[in-house]
């Protein structure tokens, strides 16, 4: 019995748009939906980053002083050059991807193969660069002292370069007065069973203080950004007083608890957002490799359409799109 409504008169006419509502195929539209939701995730992260930055607006680390390294150019301060290079690599791999899509529309298997390959190479270079960037960030270069209140104190001296007086950072390795036997790392071979502690900081605050007292040229720089947009440099007496009274922990490099660059949240957000983006790039490379082999095997040639390349292309461009924003908010603004 046809007691319930069996036909609505709309069979085969999804939304009056045929089988392809909005003239986009099912897969492509689902990819767009995914991209929208992923874009919201990323903007949530970036907005949270903005929130924390507003909270610490007077003391947020200055990106140009943190990301100054370029591979093979040791000891030179070249802010932004390497990230700009990474950005260009990613945009370039986006271009090869869109060329692969275009070749797919013309059913040109050879060209699709070459362009997909170049895209994968670009992605690999980007992920590698990001790993290097992380390693440099984690290793740190100058070291600092964290105060009881969680603030970071850095060291340096005023030098005159080309007639202009500027503040030059000094690494804690260069002045710490090391005295032996203050504190040994506890491991499971002595004392309690199966307990161990994390690696100790390279120096104790006392060693840093003695080193600071012995070198008259060294000054302490606080996190606070002054009127001129630079970090505040303390006088000699203030410097000694700060380390003596408030110094709590010597910090070298960065982890999720503390970092030598400034507010702990700075490193947390750096790891979380660039890490999440890097994970997207990595999975994008993996998906691109799968599609690359499918292209070589002729799967899409037989299917008669290279739409699959177009779909991963959308994802790949989205990864590029996110990077454009990460680049702006982490390195430029």
């Amino acid at each position, binding site marked *: 019995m046809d007691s319930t409504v069996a036909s609505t008169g709309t069979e085969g006419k999804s939304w009056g748009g045929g089988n392809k509502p*909005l*003239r*986009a195929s099912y897969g492509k*539209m689902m990819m*767009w939906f995914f*991209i*929208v939701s992923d*874009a*919201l995730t990323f*903007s*949530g992260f970036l*907005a*949270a980053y*903005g*929130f*924390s*930055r*507003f*909270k*610490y*607006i*007077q003391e947020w680390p200055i990106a*140009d002083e943190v990301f100054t390294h370029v591979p093979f150019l040791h000891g030179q301060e070249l*802010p*932004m*050059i390497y990230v*700009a290079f990474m*950005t*260009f690599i990613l*945009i*370039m791999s*986006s*271009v090869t*991807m*869109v*060329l692969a*899509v*275009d070749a797919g*529309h013309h059913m040109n298997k050879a060209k699709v193969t070459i362009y997909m390959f170049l895209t994968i190479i670009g992605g690999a270079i980007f992920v590698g660069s990001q790993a290097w960037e992380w390693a440099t960030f984690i290793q740190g270069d100058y070291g600092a002292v964290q*105060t*009881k*209140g*969680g*603030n970071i104190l850095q060291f340096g001296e005023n030098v005159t370069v080309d007639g202009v007086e500027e503040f030059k950072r000094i690494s804690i390795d260069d002045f710490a007065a090391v005295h032996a036997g203050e504190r040994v790392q506890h491991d499971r071979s002595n004392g309690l069973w199966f307990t161990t502690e994390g690696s100790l900081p390279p120096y104790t605050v006392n060693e840093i203080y003695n080193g600071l007292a012995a070198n008259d040229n060294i000054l302490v720089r606080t996190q606070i950004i002054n009127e001129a*947009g630079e970090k505040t440099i303390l006088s000699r007496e203030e410097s000694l007083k700060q380390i003596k009274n*408030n110094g709590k922990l010597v910090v070298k490099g960065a982890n999720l608890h503390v970092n030598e660059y400034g507010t702990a949240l700075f490193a947390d957000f750096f790891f979380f957002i660039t890490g999440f983006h890097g994970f997207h790039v990595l999975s994008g490379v993996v998906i691109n490799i799968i599609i690359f082999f499918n292209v070589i095997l002729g799967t899409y040639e037989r299917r008669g359409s290279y739409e699959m390349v*177009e779909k991963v*292309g*959308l994802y790949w*461009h*989205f990864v*590029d*799109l996110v990077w*454009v*924003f990460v*680049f*702006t908010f982490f*390195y*430029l*603004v």
Partner: protein
Amino acid sequence: MAHEHKLEIFRGLVKFKSNTSKIWGVLVFLTIVTLVEVGLGLAKPEWLMHTWIDPFEGGFFATLGNVILSPFVYMKPLNLIFIVLTIVKAYYITWDFMHMRDETGSMRKMVVWTAVFLICYLIFILLQEGGYVFDVYNAKTPLIKRDF
């Protein structure tokens, strides 16, 4: 089908003969924008480092003016330029690399409006509250102290 591409950018100012040449053209444009960003970021011109308008003082309309003109009142012109250039880059990546230009209008609106409205709302909430938390820490008599 996606075979037909719209081959003009900048509202028809620049026209390309094929989709491939359009892709290269967009790459050139995006590279120029990135170079401008990096150049400005390195140079940090003095006249872009300070806001051009001071916040209005006074009653309700001053506050309203500050809200409406907030990108100019509270943001360094340099940062405003960076953000605008980023959105320009995002536009060309989406429109030309992701072929949004060739999709139907309703498809475009479905994706872009959803994202834009929700993101604006999110940014508003978080920046507003970030400003509040900043005041908690940095008022004349702060509720929480960190200067030790």
